């Protein structure tokens, strides 16, 4: 198992290099000069001379591969560079936001599972009855709603109509509620459908019929056998969804002004603050790969028949 973890972490290296090279390359060819942006932000008059000096200072006059190389060697020494905007170290800025983003993601994940697990089991057991149809239709609607639409509607309802929450999220439980709900609604819709499908499949297996024939209580079969056996599949579903949640968090954090790395990334994109964008992409890749690794390990814990695969998906 230790070697599998090592192998997975080694696979991270090409992923990180590939992704950062892609983003770096795009920043290099993209229109918009970060040096000019920086000067404007500082209130310095943008002239030929100041621009040239700033470009030299920021290392933007060097060839692409040299720029990337010096960034990469900095990363290897644990230095992600400093923000163009305020000169603060990128790592510190990201770390500050990371805590909030992880809190938001985790809360959404927990809420989604807490709602969808019972709903999924309920709809599977009551298959093709009224409750099943209603919940399935609602989950379909929830799954077809973009995060930003849900956020805006929730904000309209909770902040403007019934005035239960302030419009700008404070860094508190109250502030966490609406962003979490916005991220969770599509997620719980998707989970409910997937849990339902898994439970239905399990219920159709011969051992369930056998257990019923032996006179075991339906409740016992459902909770002790069926639910236990679907748990590993559900863990995988949850693990795979973290990527979607991280993407959604950028949108939701921006709308609710939640101080996470998603909002930081959007602010940096607007300001063309390249070092922060690079750091953001790198960290996201690390988080995503680590979460997939944990998912696989948990999967194996629950189902010892599974051998950990080579694929890094």
């Amino acid at each position, binding site marked *: 198992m230790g070697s599998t973890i090592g192998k997975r972490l080694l696979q991270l290296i090409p992923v990180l290099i590939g992704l950062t090279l892609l*983003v770096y390359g*795009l920043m290099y060819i993209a229109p918009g000069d970060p040096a000019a942006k920086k000067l404007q932000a500082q209130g310095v008059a943008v002239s030929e001379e100041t621009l040239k000096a700033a470009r030299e200072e920021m290392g933007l006059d060097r060839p692409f591969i040299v720029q990337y190389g010096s960034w990469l060697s900095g990363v290897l020494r644990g230095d992600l560079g400093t923000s163009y905007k305020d000169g603060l170290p990128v790592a510190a800025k990201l770390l500050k936001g990371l805590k909030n983003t992880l809190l938001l993601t985790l809360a959404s994940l927990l809420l989604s599972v807490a709602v969808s697990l019972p709903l999924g089991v309920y709809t599977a057991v009551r298959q093709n009855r009224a409750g099943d149809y209603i919940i399935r239709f609602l989950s379909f609607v929830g*799954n077809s*709603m973009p995060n930003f639409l849900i956020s805006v509607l929730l904000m309209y309802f909770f902040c403007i109509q019934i005035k239960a929450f302030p419009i700008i999220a404070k860094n508190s439980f109250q502030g966490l509620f609406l962003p979490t709900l916005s991220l969770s609604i599509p997620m719980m819709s998707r989970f409910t459908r997937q849990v339902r499908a898994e439970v239905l499949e399990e219920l159709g297996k011969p051992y369930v019929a056998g257990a019923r024939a032996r006179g075991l209580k339906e409740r016992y079969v459902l909770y002790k056998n069926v639910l236990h056996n679907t748990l590993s599949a559900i863990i995988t579903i949850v693990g795979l969804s*973290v*990527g979607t949640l991280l993407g959604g968090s950028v949108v939701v954090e921006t709308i609710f002004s939640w101080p996470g790395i998603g909002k930081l990334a959007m602010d940096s994109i607007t300001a063309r603050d390249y070092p922060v*964008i690079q750091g953001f992409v790198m960290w996201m890749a690390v988080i995503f790969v680590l979460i997939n690794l944990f998912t696989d390990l948990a999967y194996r814990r629950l189902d010892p028949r599974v051998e950990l695969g080579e*694929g890094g998906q």
Partner: protein
Amino acid sequence: MKHKKKLSRAAVRRRVWIFLVLAIALAAFAVAAPYLTPNDPNATNSEFMKAAPCAHFPLGTDKLGRCVLSRVMMGARTSIFSSLCVVAASFVFGTALGALCGWYGGALDEIVMRVVDILLAFPQMVLAIAVAGVLGGSLLNAMIAMGITGWTLYARLARSAVMTMKKEPYIAAAKLSGCRTGRLIIRHVLPNIFGPLLVNAATQIGTMMIGIAGLSFLGIGVTPPQAEWGSMINEARAYMQLAPWTVLAPGGAMLITVMIFNYLGDSVRDLLDAGGQNDG
């Protein structure tokens, strides 16, 4: 996802037809939108700012006095057209590349599959936001950003299907009868792996639509005067307490459109029963 619901094949086929007709009707409506709008979608009107729905403006106006209904109709064009374009381009590119990798193997296969691994080891939307953000706001850039990861699943599917198919006797027979490789792949291999690829495409449309609208909402998609649902919602949310129709109209249009395309995707999947597909 396996659907255990006992639906007859005829019923599933009927559902595919219903949603296919609805989707085509929507697309046709979107194409015809410029001729159907009640008002000029970009004409501002200082006398009717944030006006409530009335006979002249059936869905009211926004803060510049532009007709919301006309803009929602033009937005359908942007959303549907751009998503279908990205899906079609990803389909063709991914399938072609995957088929070539599966057929020839070797260095090309190795390189392409490593690139696929890298792209799949990252949250799609996060990468799209970074790419679109860095490239700067325009519809084309948003489409590129969504397409960068969009083709990967087709490539994987096509590659593995071609690799298994390569060993089939009928391929050897076609080869022996003097069929050239290009023709062989297009005429004999691709038609047989079309099913799972089509399912992937059908389920991808809704995701793509939400993604492009999300980028526009964030201000890194379409550029302002152009009507697009995501950017309309973003513009209007600042004054939605005064004019809720400016958010509800594009939001409702978006929800209905995505639902129709998602239902279409689901029923195509049920029909072809590809199995083992996961929406990612």
